[in-house]
Structure formats: C-alpha cells, structure tokens
C-alpha cells in the first residue's frame, strides 16, 4: 500500500469513538428493526425480511465505523499539522499553523460521556476540511493551546 506515511508521530483517534458512534448508529437501527417487526405482525409476515436487511446494514456500517476510526490520525510537525482519514475514500490534509484563523473545540453530550472531543481547525479557506475527531478531552485543551500558540508564532496573515 503506497499512501502517505512520513515518519511523523501519528496520534490515532481514540477507539472509544467507535463505541460512541455505534451507540448512535444502533439506536437508529434498532428503532427501524422494531418497526419492521411491528409491520410483520400488523400487515404480513414477509415484512420481517426488513429486520434482517437492517441488521445486515447495521453490521456493515459498524464495520465501516471501525475502519474509518482506526484510519483517522493526525501528526503535529514543526510547521504544520497533518490529518489523514478514511479508507475507502481516503485523504490527507496539511494545514500550516500560520494559516489557522481559529481553533474550535466541541463535544456533544455523548462524546462528553466518553471523554472525547472534536477539534476543528479553521483557515481562510472553507475547503480546508481539517477536523480531528475522537480527541481525548484531557488532550484536547492542551492540543488546542499548543496549536494556537504555534499559530501566533508563525502567523502569516493572508
């Protein structure tokens, strides 16, 4: 596999992100499966097929979540931050610290329960899609502070 593997200190997304995302996924999937079960009693029994289709889809999505979370990593280099993500559609983004306009840390209720946070880096370009998911909440604050101070040191304007 030839892909971007410079000898940098890669930090991978926390595996707890898999659990968090699976909870959301299966909350939806179980709801749909229950619907199909009810349908099979109310209308006709062939509706039960939907339950198994949903189950299969859910298992496939779970596999995708596992694959994408384990592929998501970032590395802080001297002048820039590299973010890689995805397996089927994979991408690498290089964001120079000097180009960061601001850094945003966010965490929803579920993420907070798992002690996770998301860091979004904003440059002057809306297409720089640089966000770090599954950052340990304890690390998120220090990572943000480190990046903003580096950004200030290397700020290049526009």
């Amino acid at each position, binding site marked *: 596999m*030839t892909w*971007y593997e410079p000898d940098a200190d890669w930090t991978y997304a926390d595996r707890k992100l898999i659990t968090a995302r699976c909870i959301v996924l299966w909350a939806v999937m179980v709801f749909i499966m229950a619907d199909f079960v009810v349908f099979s009693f109310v209308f006709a029994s062939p509706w039960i097929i939907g339950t198994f289709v949903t189950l299969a889809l859910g298992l496939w999505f779970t596999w995708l979540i596992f694959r994408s979370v384990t592929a998501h990593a970032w590395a802080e280099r001297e002048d820039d931050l590299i973010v890689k993500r995805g397996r089927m*559609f994979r991408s*690498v983004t290089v964001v*120079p610290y000097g*180009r960061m306009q601001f850094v945003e840390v966010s965490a929803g209720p579920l993420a907070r329960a798992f002690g996770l946070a998301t860091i979004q880096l904003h440059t*002057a*370009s809306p297409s720089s899609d640089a966000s770090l998911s599954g950052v340990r909440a304890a690390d998120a604050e220090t990572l943000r502070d480190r990046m903003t101070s580096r950004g200030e040191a290397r700020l*290049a304007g526009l």
Partner: protein
Amino acid sequence: MTSNPVTPNPAPGVVYTAPREWTRVHPISPYLGSGPIFGFLAIYGLARISPSWVVGDSDEYEAINMLPFWALSGLVVLAIVGVVGFGLLSWRRNEFRIGDEAMQHRKGILFRQNKQARLDRIEAVDVVQPILARVFGLARLNVAVAGGAGSGIELSFLRLGDAEALRNEVLALAAGVRSASNPVPDAVAGDDAVSAQAGAASLRDLAMNIGVTRPETAVPAAPERDVYSVPTSRLLLSVLLSTPTILTGIAGLAVIVAAIVLGSTVTDLLAELIGTSLFAMVAFVAAIGAYFWNQINGGFKFTASTSPDGLRLRHGLLETRRQTVTPGRVQAVLVRQPWLWRTKGWYRLSMNVAGYQEDQERVSTLLPVGTLEDVRLALSLVLPDVTNDFLERAVIGTGAEDGFTPSPQRARLVDPWQWRQRGVRAGESALLIRSGRWTRDLMVVPNERTQSLGVSQGPLQRLRHLASLHVHSTPGPVSPLAANLDVDAALDLLDQQAERARAGRGAARV
C-alpha cells in the same frame, strides 16, 4: 484626478470629507431599495386596467380583482405609509464613522447590528452605483474584509462625493497614511456645512448626474494609470461566441423543425409553449436574455488600472462598479478559454479575493475577455512574481509539455474526457494547474497564498493508482484541484508544495 472639468459639481467649492463622528447615510436611501413593493403596486394597476391579452387569464390575478376598489386603495395607501415610515426609522438608525483603527457601522431598528472593519484587514473597497442610485447621484460603498460571509460593511447610499471621499480615506489609512501626518481632514472639520452632515444632504443636492462626475474630496484619490481595457465590440462578439448562444440557436432550430414536422406554424407552436400573454412573453425573453445581459452589463467598458492603493477595476453599463483591491490580496487566478474563443485567442480571467463573499460572479472578474497580451498585463498586476513566458502553451498544452506533471494514461477509466489535458506544474513562485478539454482552464496559485493542501483518493482511483491534489484557497471562483495524478507524484507534490508554501510565507513576512 481631483477636479475634472468635464462635469461641473452641483455645488461648486464643496470638498467632500470622510466623517470622523457618527454620520447617517443619505435620507432617501431606504426607498431606493423598496422598488419591489412599488413594482407590485404597478403590476396590480396594470392588471386592473389592461385587457386580458396583457396578463393572460391566469387565476393569480383573480384574487386581486375580487377585492372592492376602496379596500384596494386603502391597502395601497397603507403600504405607502408603511414603507415611508419604516424607511425613516431605519434611516435614523443607519450610521457610520471612520476612525484611525477601524471603520464602524451600526444599523437596525429591532435587532441592532454593530459592525467594525479593521483598516489593516481591508481587502477591497468598491463604489457601486445601481441605475436608480445613479439617477440621484448616489452610490453604495462596499468595504470587504477577510472574515467570512457578512463580515464586510455595506453603506447604501451616500452621495457619490461622500462615497469617494470615504473610499479614498479608508484606502489611504489602510495603506498606512495616518491622518496625524495628513492634516487635511481636520482642516475641513470646521466647515460644518459638509463634514458633520455628510449624509444629511438637502434635496437640492440631488442633481441628476448620470454622467461620470469627479467630486472634489479632501483626501484625493491616489493617481492611477490605465493598464488594459475591453473594447465594446470585443465584448459583444465574445458574448455571441458562447455556448448559451449556440444552445439558444439550437433551441430555435428545434422549434422550427418541430413546427414543420407537426404541421403547425412556428408562431402557433411558440404560443403553445410560452403562452399568449404579454407578461409570459416578457418573462420568457427575460429568462433567455438574463445570461447575455449579465455578461454585457458586467463587462461593459471594463478598465483595469494600477494605483498606489491597489488594483482598480471599473465596469458596468446600467450598474457601474469601481473596485479597488488592495495590493497583494489576490489569492488565486483562473485563466479560462471557452472552445469558441480559441480561434480568436481570447481568455477570461477570474480571481479569488478573500473579502469578496457575496455576488462573486460580478466582483471576481479580472478580465471579461482579453487577448494574450491583456492576460500577461493582468497577471503582472496581481501576481507580479509569476513568470508567464509560456502562458499560452500552458493553457492550451497537453500531457507533459512545458514541465507539467500530467495525468497518466490509466486515468482514462475515471476521467475519459480530460485526462490528456490535466496537468500540474510547481513553479518557483506559484503552482499552475490546467484542465478541461473544450473549455481550457489554467489555475495559478501563488505559493505564499496557499491556505492548506490535501490529497484524496476514492476507490476507483485506488484501483488505477491515482490520487487528486487539492489546494485550498479562499472562497471564490477558483477552486484549484489537480485531479487524477499518479499517487506517488501527488504525494511528492504535497510534500514539496507544503515546503514551498512555507518558504513563500517566510519571504512574504519579511
């Protein structure tokens, strides 16, 4: 430039200055925007009095006809009173001022809005005159700053002289000319006839001046030198030589052919397709003409010039626009050649400027149509470091010519149309990306202006050992993407370009 004898000023001896204390915009400005309401009333009036062939027998107008006349006149009076009252209120709360650090603007009746544009963050200042404002000698001032949609300041409307004075002073201040070393505004401050009430001009000042006036301003406009302009004949021909023209022609032919095949007359068929009322016909013609109109209106008398304030662009037929883009604010340039322009050797240039968020089509044109010589001049204005000796070949070339890294032949599967035209070349000062089989594109991104970089790969691309390089620029018409390169080439380029961008930033900072 300060006094031009062509058109006499409405009030001779008036020197326009930029206000240092809170100043209101021109009192009639709220009503210049209420055209739609009066337009609706006019349409209603038409529908009421005209025979049915004008508006058609549509049900939409039935409701209007059902109301008794006194109710309708009451509604009309109420609408007029409401518009006038609301306009007065919003005018009272629409104020601006200029300081040494920033320009401030506050407005709003229920929801108050207070905006501040830091002078050192100003990317561009435009003086815009829509046709109605031009009749009254008014202008809108758009101050664009980097910082997302809606972060710019829009003052509508000011007297043209006030708008120019404000623009000149903002640009002079932004360029570092502090008013401490420039005593002109203070000297005029005692003249309360103009300085304190820049917005509250009396109605006598509303001279009809459709021509170009050059009002005298306290801070004179920086001297400018014209660099290139677009002749009207070339603009009109370029609009004719465009794909929409061809499509319109084909559609017209199709109607004629269909009429012959179906055995009916062309007029009957058109009536069947569009409808028989005058309104429907006007709407149909307007829909077709909108594209052509936009092209002609936007590019009419397009002139670019240089000045110490930055790049100046003036253009427009009914709505005139005079843009000033401060130096070094152009983030990327797109050189485009539609297939019908190839024999003429014409190109169109668009640019990304960070502050231009709204109405990008109109404000981001650097050259609507021009020869290779114009393209060279334009590029030398906005990206002086980019060497462009091989510009023409860079646009029309294919494959690995001129040091470009092409898409390999295996890209044919995912990119059957333009894999042969795709290529990327990392130059000393800028990255050049070309693409497009019929419409040829060349994107130029200076190294020190790259925001961030990315490489992406989908499943089909992985099968073919390909990847795409993304260069992230500020919002605008140019979104640089070098698609379907060889994976290793793309990753190498990512590394090299990150390094070049770092070096470019370092050089730009010193």
